[in-house]
């Protein structure tokens, strides 16, 4: 049976709610267009897994903090190791990190590690964390050759230096090597929508997800995002696994809400993404995801571990929003047309400007698609301070 689902704007009740949130702050509002219908076409015949999002522990997020984890922009390998081991045990209730990893992967799995090299080299998935994830997978019995580090853009992987920083034997795959490179995508799995009259209305899933890997460990970074509000688990997975997604933005409008959640709910992406580890060693609070300006990159030394991407992104959103407030930056919910600039240079240097009307409500919308818990009060947030 072909999985075809039309989703209409009925799911956008969340957007209205968030609008009220902003109105409560007395911010001048703009009326934004409704998104078009989005068709999801999953892999024909694929049987969804119960391990898929929101996974084995819906609503649970383990937050690990260690001030020693990053110093002078250098990430500490042993501290990250300790944080991850502690996080895995706390998430699963297991007494050992090895048994915790075994809840998610077996020796027969081919495991994709979805890194976030966007923004490399200043802020991307820390190679130190990637190395610890590889160690964890190997401890659970996954052979080197069955570990695939992947992202859509090979040039960003190369800028991040991952090839020269990871161990022998594992595979590192960039999907696109040049513009309009479709060779790495599966034409049978896509989302279809016409946002702005574009000629290509489909976004295809990377083949490494549909055909190669059996599980995905998602390693997003903690950043604000000029379109989505923040980029975390959902954005890294959705926009990082489907092509032709930039078409959802046409300044100052973006349809990241609802496209991000829709992409993440397509099978087999949804079922294969069993664990999310958010890298908050560095934290971009303005200019994300691409900024290289250190003045907008804090170094809090945080890891979030969970199986529920919506709950994790909700905490990320809360964290980034507070940081921006502390720094005197515009609210992520700002909808004041006067704060929009067409000059990306101005945006990248000025936290009082936006390029687009950001859509942080994409997280709640993903929750309403069943991908996780979006209500902060209902999230089982377990904070562990290690040092």
């Amino acid at each position, binding site marked *: 049976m072909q999985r075809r689902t039309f989703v209409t704007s009925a799911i956008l009740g969340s957007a209205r709610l968030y609008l009220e949130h902003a109105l409560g702050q007395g911010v001048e509002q703009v009326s934004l267009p409704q998104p078009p219908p989005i068709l999801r076409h999953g892999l024909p015949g694929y049987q969804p897994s119960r391990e898929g999002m929101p996974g084995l522990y819906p609503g649970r997020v383990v937050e690990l903090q260690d001030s020693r984890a990053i110093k002078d922009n250098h990430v500490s390998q042993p501290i990250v190791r300790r944080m991850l081991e502690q996080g895995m045990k706390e998430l699963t209730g297991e007494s050992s990190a090895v048994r915790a990893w075994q809840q998610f992967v077996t020796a027969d799995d081919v495991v994709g590690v979805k890194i976030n090299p966007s923004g490399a080299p200043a802020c991307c998935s820390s190679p130190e964390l990637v190395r610890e994830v590889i160690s964890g997978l190997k401890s659970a019995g996954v052979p080197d050759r069955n570990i695939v580090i992947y992202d859509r853009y090979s040039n960003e992987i190369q800028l991040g*230096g991952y090839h020269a920083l990871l161990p022998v034997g594992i595979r590192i795959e960039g999907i696109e090597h040049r513009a309009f490179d479709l060779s790495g995508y599966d034409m049978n799995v896509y989302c279809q929508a016409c946002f702005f009259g574009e000629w290509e209305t489909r976004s295809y899933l990377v083949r490494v997800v549909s055909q190669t890997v059996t599980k995905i460990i998602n390693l997003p970074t903690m950043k604000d995002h000029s379109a989505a509000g923040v980029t975390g688990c959902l954005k890294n997975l959705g926009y990082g696994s489907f092509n032709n997604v930039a078409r959802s933005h046409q300044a100052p409008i973006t349809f990241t809400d609802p496209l991000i959640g829709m992409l993440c709910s397509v099978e087999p992406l949804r079922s294969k993404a069993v664990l999310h580890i958010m890298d908050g060693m560095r934290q971009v609070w303005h200019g994300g995801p691409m900024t290289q300006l250190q003045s907008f990159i804090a170094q809090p030394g945080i890891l979030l571990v969970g199986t529920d991407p919506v709950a994790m992104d909700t905490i990320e959103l809360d964290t980034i929003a507070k940081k921006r407030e502390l720094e005197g930056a515009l609210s992520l919910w700002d909808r004041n047309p006067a704060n929009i600039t067409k000059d990306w240079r101005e945006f990248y240097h000025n936290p009082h400007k936006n390029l687009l009307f950001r859509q942080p409500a994409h997280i709640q919308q993903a929750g309403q698609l069943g991908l996780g818990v979006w209500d902060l009060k209902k999230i089982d947030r377990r904070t562990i301070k290690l040092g």
Partner: protein
Amino acid sequence: MQHLENSCWVTLLSNAGRTGGQGQWPSQSSLGLLWQLRLPDSVRTSPLLADGLLYVTSLDGALHAIRIDNGREAWKFQTGARIHCTPALCGSSILFGNDSGMVYAVDRQEGKKRWEAATGAEVWASPTVLGETAFVGSADGHFYGFDLASGKLRWERQIGARIYSTAYLAGESVYFGASDGKVYCLNQNSGQVLWSTPTANGIESSPAVVGGTVLIGSEDFCLYALEAATGKIRWKYATGLGIASSPAVGGNTVFVGSKDGLLYALDIPTGHLNWKVRLDQVITASPVIAGPVVCIQSCARGVHTLEARTGRQLWHARLGSSIQSCPVLAGNAVYVADQQGMIYALG
């Protein structure tokens, strides 16, 4: 436009000395576009130049030989995988590796394969030749010595870490870095590890050796100067981010780019900073030196030319965005390859 038909730019940064100083900066006050050519895929490597042909490898899996007099392709040699390896020229052969782990020797006039040899993973490091042996590291964690004439394996040494660093040959020794963060010195004849010195993160940068000093960058943000004989650290200089760029040497000065977007000039004997200048947000390619100027391609802002002594910017072209491409400076012309697969001849 007259070109230097006999100019020879035979390996990464021009020659075995890694100075990039074989060529010279054109004397014209401004450069115009002589020709341009679009290859089918991205170029992540540096071109070579010899006898009127520019040799360029590309992610399309081919080695392209391009005539510099008209920008047309003379021949191409197609492999079965992407190429991230800057070729090396030795006599009538051109050597390079590809992402399926093959190393090729191709006749440089005809474009015909002379031999191929297999390694276990991608070969991004450029082969280096001395005498009858071609040396190259592989991402399979081994360093190889192949017979130059036949491609037969002479020796291999298991390092246990990915090798993307192009080796430097000096005296009886081979120097390179690896993903375990160590700088290695091997005996050229046996492959025996003579010493290894750890840095604090992986190494992609390729070393230069001058006056008994090994100069190499690390992802731990530092440029290292090591004693070539022992591996002892003479000095290290911290930049703002990792160093994938390979150092180029001119006189007592070493030039290197950093991912922090700055180009650095340091005094080799002391490690003191002569100057640094911001050129872009990110630099991962290597500088080349041509007499009084140093030239480098950055990730997004193209080609930059600076006065080597002071760092004063002389010239800039907003073309040639590069991850690992270095410009070829050939007297009255400059050849530039970029991430989009464009090849430009400027003169």
